[in-house]
């Protein structure tokens, strides 16, 4: 969890939850094997069949804008994506990602120079992304969110501790 290395899938600005998982699917099932077949469908219809385990999504600003649907980060995680790096995130998507155990990182500087197929290495504890010969820094993830992430998301976190870290 501390160091994640993977192949990049690059997306643009304002990737909405409607593009990540169209609303029409989420009302019919909560079976993620089914839902994940439509992951990122609105932005790249073949995405779920091309992506492999450990890949990293790199995107522009306002990633995950739109609805509060938690299905959005879940399908991304379910197809094997290990992290999302973006210039900025919509706030509900940001919260949801930690809650379901998907690391997301705001790193405005990295995004422009990178393209699909590149490899990046995310060092969460150091707040650093390595791409080729360059290193880009980002604001480290707040400690209590890191705890939730390390526990594997909010459900596992509660199971493990019998309460929530912010109540302590």
């Amino acid at each position, binding site marked *: 969890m501390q160091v994640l290395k993977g192949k990049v899938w690059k997306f643009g600005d*304002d990737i*909405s939850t*409607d*593009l990540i998982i*169209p*609303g*029409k699917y*989420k*009302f*019919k*099932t*909560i079976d993620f094997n089914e839902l994940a077949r439509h992951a990122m469908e*609105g932005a790249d219809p073949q995405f779920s069949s091309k992506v492999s385990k450990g890949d990293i999504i790199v995107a522009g*600003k*306002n990633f995950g*804008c*739109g*609805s*509060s*649907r*938690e*299905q959005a980060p*879940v399908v991304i995680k379910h197809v094997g994506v290990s992290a999302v790096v973006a210039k*900025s995130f*919509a*706030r*509900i998507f940001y*919260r*949801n990602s930690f*809650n*379901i155990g998907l690391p997301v990182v705001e790193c405005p500087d990295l995004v422009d120079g990178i393209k699909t197929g590149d490899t990046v290495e995310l060092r969460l504890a150091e707040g650093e992304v390595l791409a080729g010969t360059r290193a880009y820094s980002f604001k480290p993830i*707040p400690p*209590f969110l890191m705890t939730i992430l390390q526990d594997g*998301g*909010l*459900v596992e976190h*509660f*199971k493990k501790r019998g*309460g*929530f870290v*912010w*109540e302590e």
Partner: protein
Amino acid sequence: MAEKIIFRKTGKQPTPGDIVVLPIDAAMAHDGTAPLMIKSFEAMGARRVWSRDKAVFVIDHISPSSNEGTSALHKMMRDFAASYGVTLYDVGEGICHQILPEKGYIFPGGVVVGADSHTCTHGAFAAFSTGIGSTDMAAVFASGKLWFKVPETLRINITGALPSNVMSKDAIIYAIGKVGADGATYKAVEFSGNAVKNMTMDSRMTMCNMAIEMGGKTGLIASDSVTRQFLEGRIHVPFVELAADGDANYSDVLEIEAEKLEPQLSCPHQVDNVKPVSSLEGMHVDQVFIGSCTNGRLEDLRVVVKVLRGKKVKARTIVMPASREIMLGAIREGLIEELVKAGCAVGVPGCGPCVGGHHGVPSPAETVISTTNRNFKGRMGCADADIYLASPLTAAYAALYGKLAIPMGV
């Protein structure tokens, strides 16, 4: 104002960026988000819901159900509600963001979370209200508390009087065009100025509803006699007047002169792709939708009927009141009869075509004028339709002529 509400809850003066833990006054999940919330709640092994009076389920998104899968999810909600003592508003009751204030869950100074991004609507009542995801909601159902980052505040000050053909919807679309889809991310958006002061509760809810379309965490409007009038007889806590302090800090201020506004459109496929109606006058329109948590209220229906009374629509027009209470009001005032006579398809209170689950999915290459709050590609269920967001007045004119026209005042 956001900081003031947080201060009232914690007794400590917050600074933007601080993480605070707040007790929750109302928590809501609907049929799009409750099933996952239930799954998380049960996976956590939580045993009880923290409050029977503050936890609410609403079935509004695909309501009534259009398919077996959805019906099974609805049943899952009913079963959970029955066994844990959660209040559930079922098919036909209306849209969550309309029901919560109507049923007395919302009051000035309250902290409200909803597993829906448009929960920011309740800021119209000076409540700190924001959207969260399903697992966050499971944590709230289990503990009654949640963490928040104290937001900075963007103030949008609207002075003067709105022209007679301009509604609060036009003002908010215009503001979103100026601020951009992510211009207020992580911020509270406070609406002030005499134009806002003079708005009805219905109009104010429209403004706060769309705060999220500029990224806002919540909308906020000071509570006053208009708020009090709406809430009287509905809430069970004392009403408080809550306004921003004269020396409140804002990260930014946007000044808008109401007189200069004209009817606005959000054009495909981004809410912040804003143009005046005048620039697209004459554009052919296939379908019109009037409804949603943005513009499905009595005031909106009245405006539409003023335009359509005694006439016939040329575009396919779907109207869905936002709640049972509004439906009843509209029946009493004779609005429903006029709409039906004018050729509109009037449907069950609920979200309807807004989110593309059923009830009016457009076909490819069709143009839709909708009074809702989002026009993302695929939003109404068809990725190749063009959705334009507009006020109920502009929508009514489009329905009447089958093309976009500059509305006259009503």
